[in-house]
């Protein structure tokens, strides 16, 4: 519903019609915003009437298990880390850090092994994908290479 409202507010500043095409750049923004808003309201009504939600099945996960907040937050930090470190510290450092954090979230407590595995995978990927033409930035920017 929040997304729907933001889209509708933005659509207000866009032309809904065009001189020849009849449909302007704002129409689809309006439609998607309004649809999300209406559907969100319908969903809230359905929840109020007792609609239940069953978490999806996934390999390696128990859908009806209680949420492990520590594991979830550790994995979430691993996903957030690249936003802050990818530019200033480079891809190999960031990928190693995220690797260790995700492994920890999944219950691994062998820090040194995870650090070594993560560093090897991150460095090898950096070299391989850079060779294939992918722009992954400098190896470790603080040292200038």
């Amino acid at each position: 519903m929040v997304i729907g409202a933001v889209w509708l507010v933005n659509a207000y500043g866009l032309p809904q019609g065009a001189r020849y095409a009849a449909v302007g750049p704002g129409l689809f923004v309006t439609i998607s915003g309004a649809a999300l808003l209406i559907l969100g309201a319908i969903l809230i009504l359905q929840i109020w009437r007792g609609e239940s939600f069953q978490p999806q099945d996934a390999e390696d996960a128990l859908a009806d298990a209680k949420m492990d907040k520590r594991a979830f937050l550790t994995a979430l930090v691993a996903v957030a880390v690249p936003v802050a470190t990818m530019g200033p510290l480079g891809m190999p450092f960031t990928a190693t850090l995220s690797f260790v954090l995700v492994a920890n979230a999944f219950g691994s407590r062998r820090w040194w092994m995870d650090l070594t595995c993560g560093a090897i995978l991150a460095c090898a990927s950096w070299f391989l994908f850079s060779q294939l033409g992918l722009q992954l930035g400098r190896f470790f920017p603080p040292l200038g290479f």
Partner: protein
Amino acid sequence: MDTLGLLLQGFGVALQPVNLMWALVGSVLGTAIGILPGIGPALTIALLLPVTTALAPTSAFIMFAGILYGAMYGGSTTSILLNTPGEAGSMMTALEGNKMARAGRGAAALATAAIGSFVAGTFATLALTFAAPFVAELAFYFKPTDYFAITALAFCSVAVVMGASRTRGFISLFLGIAIGVIGIDAMTGQPRLTFGNMQLLRGIALTVVLVSLFAVGEILYVASRYRSVPGVMAPVKGKLWMTREDFARSWKPWLRGTAIGFPMGALPGSGSEIPTMLSYTLERKLSKHPEQFGKGAIEGVAGPEAANNAAAAGILVPLLTLGLPTSATAAVLLAAFQNYGLQPGPFLFTSNPALIWGLIASLYVGNVMLLVLNLPLVGIWVQLLRIPRPQLYAGILVFAMIGVWGLAGSWVDLAIMFVVGLAGYVMRVYDFPIAPVLIGLILGPMAENQLRTALAAGQGNPMVLVSTPLSAILLTIAVLLLALPILLKRLRAHA
């Protein structure tokens, strides 16, 4: 030139050593990701998109086709031996295949799955060979209004069929459409929803959304509900080949599965779940041994596996002939075409026949490769399951990160990865289907473009949208898809 001549030309392309190598790479990668949890063909192809800048389009698509088919083969292995279907299309295989494996008939289950996949893959590719040029020929006559009606029908069927509730299906779809409108409007050059951020002017790449929803969302979800006790693997026992009786009980289900899977794969929203379920139900009804179903009936493996592989070929018909993706994997393949500046559709058959026919020929080649790779080497493939899960999921995040960062080296993409990944987690917890987001994202701009072109041609008259018989029929079907279930529910309530 006739179809057979073009196909022979295609074999000339597919059998070049370099393309054979990429077909092998794709088949190996596909089988591996089919076996491994947490990663599927759509995500793999999306992660490989940035790398393909160094590859010729023909080689890249031959590799992608290998991944698409290989994932179907690999998925059956874990379903049979571990009772953990790697993807939705393998659920029925797990039901009977794992029972067979536990009863000491694992080898026969694996063999009927692999040969069934081969038979279905080959027959479905044959159907694709002859159906695709025919549909492409028809598509030459399609007008923007027809294309708009096709996308509208795709929206309705995807949102209605996928997921547990229509409301959640449509929310997923409109989320995709909402993401798709971000960036510069292609027709007027006006920025939309960029919030003053220059990097959002180019829009949000499909790869970022797909990687975030599938990889990041899955990692967060599995981490929060991780089952640390791994499943028990059934040993591969029994003769490595099927008995005469196994063959007699399998060949008809293979053909019936193909006949169900191929056309259903071509329909938007049916994915691989519906054809495999239909095949399973049909086999149970037609079997001379219905009492064996649920206890390890070979027909229950043969039929659904064939349907699963045939559906994979089926998705290529609307994709190659109309540029219409009907599943998440097809949406990524369309993005790959667009990465090369190519637009799948009838014109691609005439402008780039080497690519299209090389790709179709490679499907035949890939099928043979996959049969050889899977049947005798199954013991090696299952070793992949020994990779410890913490390191496996950590590795998937590293590759997801590389895929997103490698697109443009932008922190904005990484921030989007975080937000959309978190949304992917929420969608799994509250059971929102994920594929409609991608279909909305990729088909939304297409629908908008066709709608505006059609209305411009009709001088703004909305009746132009039902001005051709095809558009009128398709839009009627779309409305019926929406209205019929509600009407039927009301009628039942009143009865």
